[in-house]
């Protein structure tokens, strides 16, 4: 608009109107307050010259364009070059990321009954600066949270903006607290791991720590599978932190943990633990372990040790009790090891079940003399008799026929001195010295189960081999792993290995049956209606105070399987009795019998009905 070009200079040139034409001024004709110019338009007829105007227009235009270019340039920089960063920053300002916790998988028994599972719970926290009346809030919260009122008052009054009032609070309690409408009391996700079976299977299942990571047992071994992968949800929120309906709302779903199904049978586990607990509370027994294996598959049906622990209270339990002694503690097995020695003798062809040996009451073994458990003169025992009567001397005689090197080979083949590979943490490999290092006394002790250490699981595995026609299947405790989408993956099967021939195994089953019942060392291992085979063990327990055997008490054990003519289960029981006497037949065999009886009954195993054979324990007069 050209009128903009008029300036102050245009004023005096308004010659079109003379002062005479001016209407009479109201305040007199002249004076300081009289305008010099007539009222009306300030527009003058004359303007700037066209040159002036063109010049101004040009410069004005240049100035405008420069400014415009500046603005547009800046805009381009903001939008084009830095645009993404700014947009991102703005978005981030509005975006909230909420973690989605992955649900930890369950641990189930072989029939799908839960040993461990996770439920929602909350952590009750507070911002003391927002809490109006600490004493009143504490008074109202105390009965709901089961926390002393004084503690709550102290926490709610302290400095800072975050205090944890209670952890793992049930949803119902959270609802009740929310109904109180207390300012400054907040809730956070804090899922709780439940072990409904309590002590039953506690040592196998293990427990989780405060952060939810597995610290023992299956919880530890399969922590990666159980834990899952946490997800997160990113939402665009408005001023109050409320999600904008049509805004960004993207979430990465949490991948829940897989479910681990064990081979353990919860009922059998309960019975085993209950029976073992009774054995442990007899006053003399300090520790005991029991393992039940399925003969055909090598699966662990039950595994228990006493005293056990309840995973729910693991944090309050003496840390010394938190292990799983059935796989981690070794002991000298004693006579139950004779099964390995005799198997080696049979397999090597140096003896047969009816071979007769003249067994004296004692035998020289390097620097000391090994005696049988009861004093006797020379007796013509058959090998069956040696096993049935658990003769140390006879076994050492057989071992000498086999030779140290061969004996060590068979022991290692049966799994002694190496881990079974059961899916539990802290497994011990046991102790078996190389035969090259055996002294004369060690060479006499090892065949009868002294000077060699095994775990209860290893012991059970030896008898599983004999019961399974000489084929060893290392024990496994995990049946399958089920991913959250429901697909089950069977756990890797252990490699089956033939250790002794089927005929040797059959001979061993025959001889071990002689142990249980009349004439054997373990008549109390018998189960009504079933044929049972097994072996007692009474080992001297090293005295931890002196490192010698004197005053150490005994480890009594019984390992066996049933039915002897068609084995289904192996049960190994060992009891540490530092103060008590008693042999395996008297103390451990009843535990074996009760556990085995339940296992057979619950599985509906029908006895074959065939009678227990008559055993020739001593050489009959020809």
């Amino acid at each position, binding site marked *: 608009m*050209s*009128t903009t070009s008029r300036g102050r200079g245009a004023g005096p040139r308004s010659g*079109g109107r003379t002062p005479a034409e001016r209407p009479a001024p109201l305040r007199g004709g002249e004076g300081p307050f009289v305008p010099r110019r007539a009222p009306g338009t300030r*527009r*003058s*007829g*004359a*303007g700037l010259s*066209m040159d002036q105007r063109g010049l101004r227009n040009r410069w004005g235009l240049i100035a405008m364009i420069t400014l415009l270019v500046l603005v547009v340039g800046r805009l381009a920089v903001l939008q084009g070059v830095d645009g993404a960063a700014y947009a991102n920053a703005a978005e981030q300002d509005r975006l909230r990321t909420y973690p989605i916790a992955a649900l930890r998988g369950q641990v189930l028994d072989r029939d799908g*009954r*839960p040993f461990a*599972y996770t*439920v*929602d719970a909350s952590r009750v926290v507070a911002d003391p600066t927002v809490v109006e009346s600490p004493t009143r809030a504490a008074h109202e919260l105390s009965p709901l949270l089961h926390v002393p009122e004084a503690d709550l008052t102290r926490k709610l009054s302290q400095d800072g903006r975050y205090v944890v009032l209670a952890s793992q609070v*049930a*949803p*119902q309690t959270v609802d009740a607290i929310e109904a109180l409408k207390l300012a400054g009391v907040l809730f956070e996700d804090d899922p709780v791991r*439940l072990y*409904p*079976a*309590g002590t*039953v299977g506690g040592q196998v299942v293990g427990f989780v720590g405060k952060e939810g990571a597995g610290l023992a047992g299956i919880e530890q071994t399969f922590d990666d599978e159980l834990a899952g992968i946490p997800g997160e949800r990113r939402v665009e929120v408005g001023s109050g932190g409320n*999600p904008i*309906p*049509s805004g960004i709302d993207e979430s990465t779903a949490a991948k829940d943990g897989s479910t681990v199904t064990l081979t353990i049978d*919860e*009922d059998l*586990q*309960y*019975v085993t633990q*209950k*029976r073992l607990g*009774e054995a442990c*509370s*007899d006053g003399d027994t300090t520790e005991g372990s029991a393992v039940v294996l399925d003969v055909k598959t090598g699966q662990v049906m039950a595994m228990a040790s006493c005293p056990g622990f309840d995973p729910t209270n693991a944090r309050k339990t003496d840390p010394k009790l938190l292990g799983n002694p059935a796989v981690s503690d070794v002991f000298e097995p004693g006579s139950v090891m004779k099964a390995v020695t005799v198997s080696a003798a049979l397999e090597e062809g140096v003896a047969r079940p009816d071979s007769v040996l003249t067994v004296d009451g004692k035998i020289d073994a390097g620097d000391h003399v090994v005696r049988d458990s009861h004093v006797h003169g020379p007796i013509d025992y058959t090998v069956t008799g040696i096993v049935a009567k658990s003769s140390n001397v006879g076994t050492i005689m057989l071992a000498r026929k086999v030779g140290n090197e061969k004996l060590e080979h068979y022991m290692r083949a049966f799994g002694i001195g190496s881990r079974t590979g059961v899916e539990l943490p802290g497994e011990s490999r046991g102790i078996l010295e190389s035969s090259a290092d055996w002294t004369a006394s060690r060479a006499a002790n090892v065949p009868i189960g002294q000077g060699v250490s095994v775990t209860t699981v290893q012991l059970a595995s030896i008898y599983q081999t004999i019961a399974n026609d000489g084929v060893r299947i290392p024990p496994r405790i995990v049946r399958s792993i089920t991913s959250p989408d429901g697909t089950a993956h069977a756990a890797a099967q252990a490699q089956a290995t033939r250790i002794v021939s089927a005929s040797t195994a059959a001979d061993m089953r025959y001889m071990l049956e002689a142990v249980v019942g009349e004439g054997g060392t373990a*008549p*109390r291992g*018998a*189960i*009504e*209606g*079933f044929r049972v085979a097994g072996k007692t063990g009474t080992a001297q327990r090293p005295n931890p105070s002196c490192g010698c055997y004197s005053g150490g008490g005994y480890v009594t054990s019984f390992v066996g399987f049933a039915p002897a003519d068609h084995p289904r289960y192996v049960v190994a029981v060992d009891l540490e009795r530092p103060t008590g006497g008693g042999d395996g037949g008297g103390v451990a065999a*009843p535990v074996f*019998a*009760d556990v085995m*009886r*339940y296992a*057979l*009954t*619950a599985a*509906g195993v*029908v*006895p*074959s*009905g065939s009678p227990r054979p008559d055993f020739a324990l001593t050489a009959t007069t020809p």
Partner: protein
Amino acid sequence: MTRATARAVTTTARPTTGRTTTARTTTARTTTATPRSTPRPTGRAVPARPELRLVPSVPARTRRRVAPRFASGRAPFVLLVVALLVGTTLGLLILNTAIAVDSLKATQLRAANAERAQKVQSLQQQVVAGGTPERIAAAAAAAGMVPAGPAAFLVIAPDGSSTLRGTPEAAVAPPAPATPSPASASPAAKSPAAESPAVKSPAAQSPAAPSPAAPSPAAKSPAAQPPTSPSPASPSPAG
């Protein structure tokens, strides 16, 4: 210069007045400006400046001629635009309201869902807790049940004859748990019902019996009276 200014004013003013139909009829300025071809200014007597050359009248003329033609078709268009604007605004408003309502509903449903999930969870928790061997054993003991003894089996041969395997025994009540007596091999007295043709005697077969019926050694305490024990484990005649 003044005249030129005036001309400029009138030319700029014309389209403005021309746009509204009412203004077109009687405005003095419009009528005076109509004989545009004569370069005579109307209102003011201002000395003409010869060098004036600013406003070429051609575009103005074109515009003037075009404008009326549009003017007749403009009203519906304007109405359409206004209608579209109003419609869009209203539509957006309705849509936004609907979304907000739905979002509110979704939140409510989600809350209700969470509440139900919580309820299901707590119920499941009760079921699981009630199904543990320990609880079942306790409940069974409270109901007067006793752990089953050894099993006996009737095996039916293909020809219909049956053989009894094992020795059926009546389960006996365990003594007080305070005195766990060691296992004794003393055989319990046979129950008369044992001869009935039950396929399988122990409680393991009976659905009513708790599964963890432990064959406790204590069950064979000599003090117990086998025939009088309330025994769900004794062989049922239904076979």
